[in-house]
């Protein structure tokens, strides 16, 4: 996901300009010189300036290349492909799945699916991920629902406690 500095820089210019313009449109407090408009205006302009600087590579020399500590004993290199990078999007996707599904399916089932998917994606075999998908949601439910009284959705499967 390492993008060229020009891409992120230009994105920041756009974001900053949009924020400044959005701030500009807000009405000031009646009778006062300033209001809710001034802060976004300042920040947006600053962000756009930073974006320009980044686009032109200013400050790049300060960046330290991340040191990767070589592992001993010849680790398996991860496969590198275009689709491999998309795996990183799995955790946020699963969280959104929770938002959509939790009320209908209930906490235990949704959480079980999330645990199973995450665990499998990190290379666990079913012998580990399946029991984990059953036990972890129950444990979390016990702590949050019973002890801390968070109203977790019951859905299709409710817990005896």
């Amino acid at each position, binding site marked *: 996901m390492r993008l060229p500095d020009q891409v992120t820089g230009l994105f920041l210019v756009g974001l900053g300009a949009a924020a400044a313009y959005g701030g500009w449109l807000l009405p000031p407090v009646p009778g006062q010189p300033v209001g809710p408009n*001034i802060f976004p205006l300042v*920040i947006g302009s600053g962000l756009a300036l*930073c*974006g320009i600087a980044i686009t032109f590579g200013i400050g790049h020399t300060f*960046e330290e290349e991340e040191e990767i500590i070589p592992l001993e004993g010849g680790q398996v290199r991860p496969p590198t492909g275009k689709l491999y990078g998309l795996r990183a999007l799995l955790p946020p996707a699963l969280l959104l799945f929770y938002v959509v599904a939790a009320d209908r399916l209930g906490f235990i089932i949704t959480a079980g699916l999330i645990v199973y998917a*995450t665990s499998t994606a*990190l290379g666990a075999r079913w012998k580990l991920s399946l029991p984990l998908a059953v036990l*972890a949601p129950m444990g979390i439910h016990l702590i*949050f629902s019973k002890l801390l009284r968070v109203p977790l959705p019951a859905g299709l499967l409710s817990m005896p406690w």
Partner: protein
Amino acid sequence: MLKTLIEAFALISTWEVIIAMLAASVYGLVIGSLPGLSATMATALLVPVTFYLSPIAAIATIVAASTMAIFSGDIPGALLRIPGTPASAAYADEAYAMTRKGEAELALGAGVWFSAIGGIAGTLSLMILAPPLAEIALSFSTFEYFWLAFLGLMCATLVARSSPVKAIAGMFIGLLVSCVGIENPGGVPRFTFGITDLFGGIEPIPALVGVFAVAQVMRAMLTPEPPPIPKRKFGSIMAGQWKLTKKYHWQMTRGNIIGVIIGVLPGAGADMAAWVSYAMSKRFSKEPEKFGTGHVEGLVEAGASNNASIASGWVPSLLFGIPGDTIAAIAIGVLYMKGLNPGPTLFTEKASSMYAIYLMFIIANIIMIPLGIIMIRLASHVLRAPRSSIMPVIMLCCAVGSFAIGNNMFGVVTVAAFGIIGYVMEANGYPVAAMVLGIVMGTMIEQSFVTSLIKSDGSVLPFFERPISAILAAMAIGALIWPVLVWLWQRLKAASPATSPR
């Protein structure tokens, strides 16, 4: 004074506080020792739980968990050469070299012992520094608060181990996030795009959980699993520590002082303290050639330093609501929730609560020694737990915890969104800590800025007229110009010889 101290003792000697503290200690030790799970993340995931505790117990969990996690990051650093938290990264190589020389006990023992001493030194600095600063801060007006907050944000960008321009950009992104909602000087919906859930603004805590926890799970998806730890028997862990203390007492003191200073600076936390102290130790050592070959001196200084920064990071947090580091940023959120709003009056009106915080820090650092020794002995078992069994549980805690903050599914969406933002920023060299500070301090800096502008009738001049305000302004503007000067100097240096270093 004595009466307040007794009151403070009464506050912390309840079963709730004791159990919360012990549980949080164990939790902090385990999370801190697992590679990839940082102390900040441990603290962020703890917040939903603190909702249901009394104020003192809530702070106790944060104090205990963060203190323990910073120490226990040393354990996998020494045994696997993989730091458990970024704060241990500075000397992981050194500690591992000691383990290979057969001195694992000495390395880990130094970790526990000098961490505890560092933590206590940090607490003493908190006790000594905070009350007189509170006296001065009572006379601060919005102008001073504005410059102070601005200075805090600038410090955060200066110390980032990345491009200062990118750090400033990250800070602006955080400030922009804090703009969302109707909590602004005009009370109008700002950047809400008609979404009702955004009217209340973006909660800092789900944003922090997203940036520190979800982004970490995302990174884990793409990196190989760390190797399992080899089984080993440990000899006596505390043997020889007293000798080290006497031999390296000057290094230890210097580490403590550096840690305290870096902790007080906004935005710079334990990891920065460890890097600086390790470098200092090497620079001033009588035997610098031994560094990197398993020499304990750097470990003593850096270990004393990173734990000292944890407690002193609370100084600006408690006084001004300006977080000393990312852990303190989370602590501020909890303080607000519990009605202990940061500010100089906290030290006069809620003095017993403040003393309770000091006491908890001291107790946490003392019980760290026995608990840490147990943890070191159990480490080979805990570190055998595969990542594929820990990350799913972290995911569930993210989902449930962010939901619990407002009993609102929108919190979960926030966590997911900030997971992506944090991941993309980190991958492209934008320091997320700067953004986090922006989010936490945004409302405060806007309020002091706009109130000051209204008071001055739109003129900028009064920002520089009051004496303290002028000093703070000079420091803040200096911090802003500094990277530009360094950059220009580098340019000039690179221009004179024909070959530039890049």
